[in-house]
């Protein structure tokens, strides 16, 4: 079936439209959105299997041949990310049932989540740079609404900042596309790559490369451009930040990965060196901020920043080891950040505060939550049997192989700070005097733990079966290292 790769975009789109008709019937909305997201996840797995069997899948929309129409391209990397994204969205939807509240559910919440997934899956799958801009806007527009839905004061305040930053970066994206179009005269990503290779990336193209880095860095949150992230991600309720933290910044990182391996790989001395320097500063600043705060949500938000830095460092180093490390770490980080934000949401719901010094001894009342939290911290820091280990070790190895000892050491030491920043929360809030906490019977914690445990099981098996996952990652990295594979698949050579 040739249309398989468009299904992860079309299924959420149709669902979103259908859900609008049942705005007031919350139960029907829940069922429809959970079932359709399961469907999206299953189709993305089928797509993954098909790419594993038959190589890169392309679809020319409307039968226009490749450089002239819009082409959707699903290589192993984008299929893996679509599958992970749909899986996380499914868990977030299940988590929303108990946490988001009726008022928001009646106000098109599930519909907007589905639109968000249209944008995310589309941005991962598209093979056209302007179409990517459009999918970015679909994603951002839904995220604006999700950020402000409910209309509390902090949400209104923060969404104004979030809107302003993203409107600016979207204008920059249009300008970057305009520059690129004026030089190569094409919008198809494979065709652009071919034309840039013919011209050998002159100086002006490097300027465009940096402009793209600014645009995607604003979406993804790398060093000088992550100023908006801590405030904005603090405002919305837990299931929404879980979605944001897992998906939105990672789309920016994916775009950097795609453009820097497909378009701008000719002048690595400048562009990739710049990316490495920015990533290292990102990691250092993120680590400092993660230990500076006493609020659990803030700590996890700054851990996003650290992880973004680690992934982009792997992209900048640009050898087989570091790239596969980046892909490993990207998928791991999506899963674990969703789980951590959900856990933080449950803790805040139980105790009524995010500051970990105000309560203690939670393990007495909530043992399962405590141990899941403990495991997720270990996975985040990268303790060997768990999921964060393999990616980080590959990135560090790639750094050492390029002779960048400082960079690789920064990556390794950042683990220590990440571990310390969250273990401190665990020790202070779960251990200690059980008088500091009481059972909050208003919240069905056991129900909320289901999606969290599903995510943690996925994360643990991702670490334990990393040999098996490695088959897929290798295929993804092959395309990143040899852009000719991508170009041949799209332009049918």
């Amino acid at each position: 079936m040739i249309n398989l790769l468009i299904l992860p975009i079309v299924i959420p789109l149709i669902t979103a439209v259908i859900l609008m008709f049942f705005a007031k019937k919350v139960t029907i909305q829940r069922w429809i959105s959970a079932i359709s997201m399961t469907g999206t996840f299953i189709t993305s797995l089928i797509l993954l299997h098909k790419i594993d069997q038959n190589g890169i899948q392309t679809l020319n929309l409307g039968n226009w041949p490749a450089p002239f129409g819009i082409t959707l391209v699903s290589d192993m990397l984008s299929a893996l990310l679509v599958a992970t994204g749909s899986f996380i969205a499914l868990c977030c939807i299940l988590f929303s049932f108990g946490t988001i509240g009726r008022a928001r559910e009646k106000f098109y919440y599930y519909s907007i989540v589905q639109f968000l997934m249209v944008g995310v899956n589309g941005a991962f799958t598209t093979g056209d740079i302007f179409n990517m801009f459009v999918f970015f806007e679909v994603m951002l527009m839904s995220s604006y609404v999700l950020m402000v839905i409910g209309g509390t004061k902090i949400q209104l305040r923060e969404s104004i900042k979030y809107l302003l930053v993203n409107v600016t970066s979207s204008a920059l994206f249009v300008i970057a596309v305009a520059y690129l179009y004026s030089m190569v005269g094409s919008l198809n990503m494979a065709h652009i790559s071919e034309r840039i290779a013919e011209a050998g990336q002159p100086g002006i193209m490097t300027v465009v490369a940096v402009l793209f880095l600014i645009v995607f860095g604003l979406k993804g949150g790398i060093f000088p451009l992550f100023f908006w992230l801590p405030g904005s991600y603090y405002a919305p309720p837990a299931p929404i930040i879980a979605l944001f933290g897992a998906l939105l910044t990672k789309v920016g990182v994916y775009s950097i990965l795609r453009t820097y391996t497909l378009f701008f790989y000719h002048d690595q001395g400048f562009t990739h060196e710049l990316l490495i320097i920015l990533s290292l500063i990102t990691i250092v600043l993120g680590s400092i901020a993660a230990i500076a705060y006493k609020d659990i949500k803030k700590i996890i938000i700054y851990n996003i920043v650290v992880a973004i830095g680690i992934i982009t460092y792997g992209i900048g180093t640009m050898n087989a080891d570091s790239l596969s490390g980046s892909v490993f770490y990207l998928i791991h980080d999506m899963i674990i950040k969703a789980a951590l934000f959900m856990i933080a949401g449950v803790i805040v719901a139980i105790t009524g505060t995010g500051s970990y010094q105000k309560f203690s001894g939670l393990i007495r009342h909530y043992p399962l939550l405590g141990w899941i939290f403990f495991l997720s911290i270990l996975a985040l820091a990268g303790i060997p049997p768990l999921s964060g280990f393999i990616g980080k070790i590959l990135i560090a190895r790639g750094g050492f192989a390029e002779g960048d000892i400082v960079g690789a050491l920064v990556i390794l030491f950042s683990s220590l700070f990440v571990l310390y920043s969250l273990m401190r929360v665990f020790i202070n809030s779960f251990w200690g005097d059980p008088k500091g906490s009481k059972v909050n019977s208003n919240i069905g914690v056991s129900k909320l733990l289901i999606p969290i445990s599903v995510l943690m099981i996925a994360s643990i098996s991702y670490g334990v079966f990393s040999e098996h996952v490695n088959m897929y990652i290798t295929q993804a990295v092959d395309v990143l290292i040899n852009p000719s594979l991508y170009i041949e698949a799209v332009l049918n050579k």
Partner: protein
Amino acid sequence: MEILMSIVIGLLFASAVYLMLSKSLLRIIIGTGLLSHGAHLMLLTLAGLKRGTVPLLGENAQAYTDPIPQALILTAIVISFGVTAFFLVVAYRAYQELGTDNIDEMRGTETDD
């Protein structure tokens, strides 16, 4: 012609940046409007302002202008229109709820909710 357009677009960007750095929320939104005008004009200019007739096949002309940037601009216009409408409504709601139009007063400490 392109040089003249570039200068004008540069002026648009300069005023957009100036407005977006001011304190009043409405001036910021006007700035985003100017910014998107600049971006759209830039898309048109960079694709080339060579002479040719409108891209309608009925004209039966020797040369046409490039139709692609026009389609891109049309897309970008409706997107920025939607976003601006949403931004204006959020600004209105924020004015009602927070009682201020000054972006400096929208600073929040971590604890208030």
